[in-house]
């Protein structure tokens, strides 16, 4: 670690916050010079200014610019209307990516919610609950790149007859099945990639579901049991309906992630063998093909797919604010 790098780090970690705090202190001194009635009108804007600036430069402006770019030609000069959209939607590879994103959307969201719910409900009934939850939640801390290496090793494939070092194919061998090239075989590869994401995210769903589960009053469950309800009935008729709002919130997070899926596919298959997804395809158009027009059109399609979730989030928040 050279001295330049250390100076650089210290500068960023100490000087930047110091400068930001100085910004607040100095501007407030300025505000106090104003007449007392004007002060509260000016002050809030100075406090939100750094954030709004960053959000404008890195989120709002680029989103608008990308939408605009998607209507221009490859050189970014001439307006071409919807031509880019026609081009990408006429591309067989893009259609496969859209299909795969739908696989992700349905398979990943459903599996994470179901596993999270099952684990939360089961773990709630044992004394070693916190150990189980820690272990299941742990993959959330690591990168998708690391998760891809972990699972690449699980899915490792050798031709029949050779020793299978991949855990899944070794298990198949044990039951006299022939080994499967999980990541290449068209019947299994999308499911295999989705499984990696499910492995990572189940802990997230489990922890939140578990917190909501502990908020259900015990008397309610007891009353149902006294009335002769079986555990299954209690689960279906009481626990599930009461957890529904929480599961919906988790679901929206998962849907957004499913649509943005990138890292796992990039590392494990590079989108080959019919496993590509929209986010990776967009990156490839931008980075490999240097076609910003098509890349922008793909990004906008991705945004359009997310808009319903976005609207749902905003409306839910407005409702929460209203009942506050």
């Amino acid at each position: 670690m050279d001295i330049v790098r250390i100076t650089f780090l210290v500068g960023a970690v100490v000087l930047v916050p110091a400068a930001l705090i100085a910004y607040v202190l100095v501007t407030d001194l300025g505000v106090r010079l104003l007449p007392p009635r004007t002060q509260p009108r000016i002050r809030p804007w100075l406090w939100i200014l750094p954030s709004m600036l960053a959000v404008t430069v890195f989120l709002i402006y680029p989103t608008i610019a990308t939408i605009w770019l998607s209507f221009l030609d490859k050189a970014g000069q001439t307006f071409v209307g919807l031509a880019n959209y026609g081009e990408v939607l006429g591309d067989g590879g893009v259609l496969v990516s859209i299909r795969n994103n739908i696989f992700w959307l349905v398979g990943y969201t459903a599996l994470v919610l179901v596993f999270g719910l099952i684990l939360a409900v089961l773990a709630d009934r044992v004394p070693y609950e916190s150990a189980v939850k820690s272990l299941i939640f742990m993959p959330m801390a690591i990168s998708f790149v690391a998760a891809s290496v972990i699972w690449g090793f699980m899915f490792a494939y050798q031709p029949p007859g050779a020793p299978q070092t991949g855990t899944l194919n070794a298990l198949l061998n044990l039951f006299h099945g022939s080994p499967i090239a999980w990541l290449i075989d068209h019947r299994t590869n999308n499911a295999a990639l989705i499984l990696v994401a499910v492995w990572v995210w189940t802990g997230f769903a489990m922890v939140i579901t578990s917190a909501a589960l502990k908020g259900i009053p015990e008397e309610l469950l007891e009353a149902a049991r006294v009335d002769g309800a079986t555990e299954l009935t209690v689960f279906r008729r009481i626990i599930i309906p009461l957890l529904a709002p929480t599961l919906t919130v988790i679901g929206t997070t998962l849907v957004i992630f499913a649509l943005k899926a990138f890292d796992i596919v990039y590392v494990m298959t590079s989108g080959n063998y019919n496993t590509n997804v929209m986010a990776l395809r967009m990156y490839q158009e931008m980075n490999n093909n240097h076609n910003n027009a098509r890349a922008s059109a793909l990004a906008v399609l991705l945004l359009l797919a997310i808009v319903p979730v976005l609207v749902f989030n905003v409306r839910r928040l407005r409702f929460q604010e209203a009942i506050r």
Partner: protein
Amino acid sequence: MAVGAPVTAEVAAAAPRPARVEAERRRIDLGSLPLNVALVLLTAVWIVPTLALLVSSFRPRFLINTTGWWQALVPPFQFTLNNYREVLDTYSIGTAFVNSLTIAIPATVIPITIAAFAAYAFSWMRFPFRNSLFLLLVGLLAVPLQVTLIPVLQIFTRTGLTGTFLAVWLAHTGYGLPFAIYLLRNFIGALPSDLFESAEIDGAGPVTAFFRLVLPLSVPALASLAIFQFLWTWNDLLVALVYLGGSPDVAPLTVNVSNLVSSLGQGYELLTAAAFVSMALPLIVFLALQRYFVRGITAGAVKG
């Protein structure tokens, strides 16, 4: 981890159950053997992949290619540190580790500082369009990064920032802010209003109230946010890939390891070691701060 939607607030809503009831519920169900078996099996399925990686990273190459990792668990034990030595010496994993730190620390500190200012203003100051601006931020939570990549890259290229750490810090700041402001506003907005009224009576201005009251009381929220943002920036691949490029001088662990996957292919003795180096710090952060993390989220308003 990429937390993309307002979800943490729900955790805060769920109060812990009283200990007595807890004990009763457990006693009733403990006798059920199938439940315990199912749970232990599921947990085992969850940890086996990580275990396989960890064990393999200490095995010599000739064994990795011919035998399964589970065979390392029975004698003769043959373990080695060579894989780690090789990825550190030959594949610049050490540099990548330092690069990841150089990216993640400022990319955590900067947005949290700015977000704290904004969250305070959104909670306790009155100004026109306050709610609309906040709703805009919530809307931005869901915007996919892909939609920002091209214009931001053009800005960085025009200003000569492409390939520098500064570019990645700024990008992570912009991308992390909506979530940071949302989380902090939920917390700061829930502080009791008498606190601010009595501070005002005592003659404390907004600046004093922020540094003396809001910041100290928000430590749990700031800490859990710091963990979120640190893990998110440490584990990020896309932002580093696009704005830094693949040069080994600046590439973080995620970029370096993903390059190794495509160049080494089946060289699992090295891949597992490299992956484990990239996981070590997040796992330590997670294991050390897990309790604090959960408590930070569930801690409600301050008493007194």
